[in-house]
């Protein structure tokens, strides 16, 4: 299974065709099939047109749309980078959701409880504590795998469940729960720990925040880590050929724990980013299954940092556009989930895409095996 996934979803070197063209066509076909779905459910042609045009307008059509797209893409890309990194090293990290929750909780606590720090200290502190807690949480799965061989898919799924319950429990504890509230909701973080909005000088409604820039920096950092450091070399060789990695003297146990630590830090950062950049406080389900969507983003981006960046922007656009689509055309956002799933199907079966547009992908059959 892992071998199969690796063949389909790991791209070792940046190949424009693989990383950009296939996703673009996959998206196009997914939208087409989505259209057929709408027809089948009895939507009129006019409404379908409204739906699709608002999908486009809501994601790219205005400054506000772009701001929403980037805002939605940011946490997806953070978490997907971690999943991609682990994937590179041969680990299937399903636990980004849980790591995000733990990271977000840590950031909330730092955000509301420390009231004496200036913004240039408080904000980085909240973000790094979020990353650190996500990292430690993910390391549990790494350590279990390295020391006992427990499969990371199983352990990260369990850790997700624990994180979700832990969140509910903590939101009701008097230290964290907002004063005077009965529902589980945390205190709000202080201004000094909030990610500043980037475009408020144009319009205070524009939600795009500095987390987007942090994310762009992180993409470059992970790219550098993966391809320009010995650690990246170790990750990649462990994932690509564990026997050869062993022969090269690379210790699998150390690699496993380290890569899970970094993957968790990135997911934790996704959580902290949501808290300090968008939500301002934690509530049940604040992670909004971003950690799960990020798996799809990582796969779509072929586990390459640059690929992940583009895939994340695409998914961000679908989310932002989907909201307008729901408002304007009354089409359920579930359609967006279907379209996202279809995109993944087309990516997983590149032959479908290649056969459909053979003049672009004139290649040998052997490559697809």
């Amino acid at each position, binding site marked *: 299974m892992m071998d199969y996934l690796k063949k389909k979803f790991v791209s*070792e070197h940046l190949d424009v065709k693989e990383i950009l063209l296939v996703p673009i066509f996959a998206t196009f076909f997914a939208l087409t099939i989505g259209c057929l779905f709408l027809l089948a459910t009895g939507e009129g042609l006019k409404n379908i047109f409204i739906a699709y045009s608002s999908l486009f307008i809501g994601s790219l059509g205005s400054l506000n749309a772009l701001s929403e797209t980037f805002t939605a893409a940011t946490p997806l890309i953070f978490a997907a980078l971690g999943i991609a990194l682990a994937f590179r090293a041969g680990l299937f990290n399903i636990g980004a959701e849980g790591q995000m929750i733990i990271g977000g909780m840590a950031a909330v606590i730092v955000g509301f409880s420390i009231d004496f720090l200036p913004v240039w200290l408080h904000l980085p502190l909240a973000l790094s504590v979020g990353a650190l807690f996500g990292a430690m949480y993910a390391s549990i799965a790494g350590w279990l795998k390295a020391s006992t061989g427990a499969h990371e898919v199983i352990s990260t799924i369990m850790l997700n469940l624990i994180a979700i319950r832990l969140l509910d429990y903590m939101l009701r504890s008097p230290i964290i729960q907002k004063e005077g509230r009965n529902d589980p909701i945390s205190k709000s973080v202080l201004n000094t720990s909030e990610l500043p909005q980037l475009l408020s000088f144009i319009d205070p409604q524009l939600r795009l925040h500095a987390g987007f820039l942090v994310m762009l920096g992180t993409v470059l950092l992970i790219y550098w880590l993966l*391809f320009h*450091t*010995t650690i990246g070399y170790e990750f990649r*060789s462990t994932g690509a050929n564990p026997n050869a990695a062993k022969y*090269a003297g690379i210790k699998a146990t150390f690699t496993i724990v380290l890569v899970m630590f970094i993957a968790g830090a990135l997911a934790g950062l996704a959580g902290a980013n949501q808290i300090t950049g968008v939500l301002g406080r934690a509530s049940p389900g604040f992670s909004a299954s971003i950690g799960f969507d990020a798996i799809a983003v990582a796969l779509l981006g072929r586990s390459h940092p640059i690929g992940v960046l583009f895939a994340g922007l695409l998914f961000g656009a679908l989310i932002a556009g989907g909201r307008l689509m729901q408002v304007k055309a009354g089409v359920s956002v579930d359609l967006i989930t279907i379209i996202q799933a279809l995109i993944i199907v087309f990516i997983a079966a590149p032959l479908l895409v290649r056969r459909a547009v053979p003049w672009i992908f004139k290649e040998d*059959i*052997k490559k697809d095996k």
Partner: protein
Amino acid sequence: MVSIELKNISKSFGPVTANKDINIFAKGGEILGLLGENGAGKTTLMNVLSGLYRPDSGTISINNEEKTFDSPRDAISAGIGMVHQHFMLVPIFSVTENVILGNEETGFANFLKLSESERKVKEISEKYSLFVDPKEKIERLPVGSQQRVEIIKVLFRSAEVLIFDEPTAVLTPQEVAELFNIMNSLKATGKAIIFITHKLHEVLEVCDRISILRAGEIVGEADPKVASNKELANMMVGRPVNLSLERRSSKPGKILLDVKNLSVLSEKLDLAVSDISFDVKEGEIVGVAGVQGNGQTELVEALTGLRSSLSGKISYFGQMVPNMNPRKIHQIGVRHIPEDRQKSGIIGNFSVGENLILNNYYAAPYSKHLKMDWDVVSIESQKIIKNFDIRTPSNDTLAQNLSGGNQQKLVVGREMSSHVDFLIASQPTRGIDVGSIEYIHEQLIKSRNAGNGILLVSTELEEILALSDRIIVLFRGRIIKEFESNPAPEQIGLAMAGHSI
């Protein structure tokens, strides 16, 4: 009887021209030998014929009828079957299940008609003397029998043209003899056979015609009845090749590797190496002969820190190595050419450059303070590529796109290029052409003459005899016999079969 003809076939991969305007034909009742240096384009040509690659230009005709193949399936239904060098079998499936995979016959409610298929497999195996139990699981079969399953698989799909890509590289001498019998009986029933190998005497022994490729082009034909090893080698390489080695007698010095009462368990926890003692001295090549599967793999893994030993002592340069692991062994100056390049020697989807630093990527000059220096890697790998004549467009090419022999040269080049004190070489020339074997053998002798110790593990008797100063023969995990100087090949052959006298 079937006849196939390839006309003006050309195939390039980006800037690399693998096949250029190639014309060959093969007829039923005939074995065609295909010879050529590593990277000459043999495998590519056969992949074109078997539908894996689409040629850039040229045509394939079968029985004078032009065909185009869009997939291997098309080629199979046109009667072309390929036995690949790297087997494509599912280890946990039975022989029959593997044979019918992708071609399953089903009956009521899509249930497999397994017993019927089993009968058919049995029929084929009896007809062509491909002895193998249809119910046995692949993982329990020795390499030779697995290859027979691959052949049955091809025949099951009623192939008339059979392609064998370096089938003998992994076989024991007996298995090779059996394979030749099988090929001859296939030929007798009117099938056409195309046979690729780097061993010249094999082509001379079994082929009816020989075509020779160089740098993607056909450079000539040879008649096996009159041609000699030397002529073939010269045609392949385009220059005279020295097939026999010259070497001075050895002057053994201090003991470099000392193995005492070593026992090692295999994966399946049986005693693969039991109570072995031997040493290797400075300026000496010690050959380990033996039929594959008699403990060589486990012995080498134990010596290189890849596998822990059950009992006994291993010391290098007069000292035991505490907590032996591959990196420590490498750091004290031991180099290791692993027996299976695809399994552990290279990383297929890493570039040639990335592969050339596989066991010293973490050290200067390739990296400093965790930061890789790709410029240095590139400069150093150009040198290795040049010295070992690795045929690759650049050091950024993915290793999996190199031809089999060039992948092997990559591994050998890497291990013999950094400072060596002791070399453990397992099947160092597997899949390598005569010209490059000459070079690698020279390098091994040079290294020995410079005072290094070499442990040479090879199932190739000729290689052992040509290079070794001393020979030990492994049989069922024990040293059954030691030869101090060059014995007659028959004597070693007997020892390899388990006779200790």
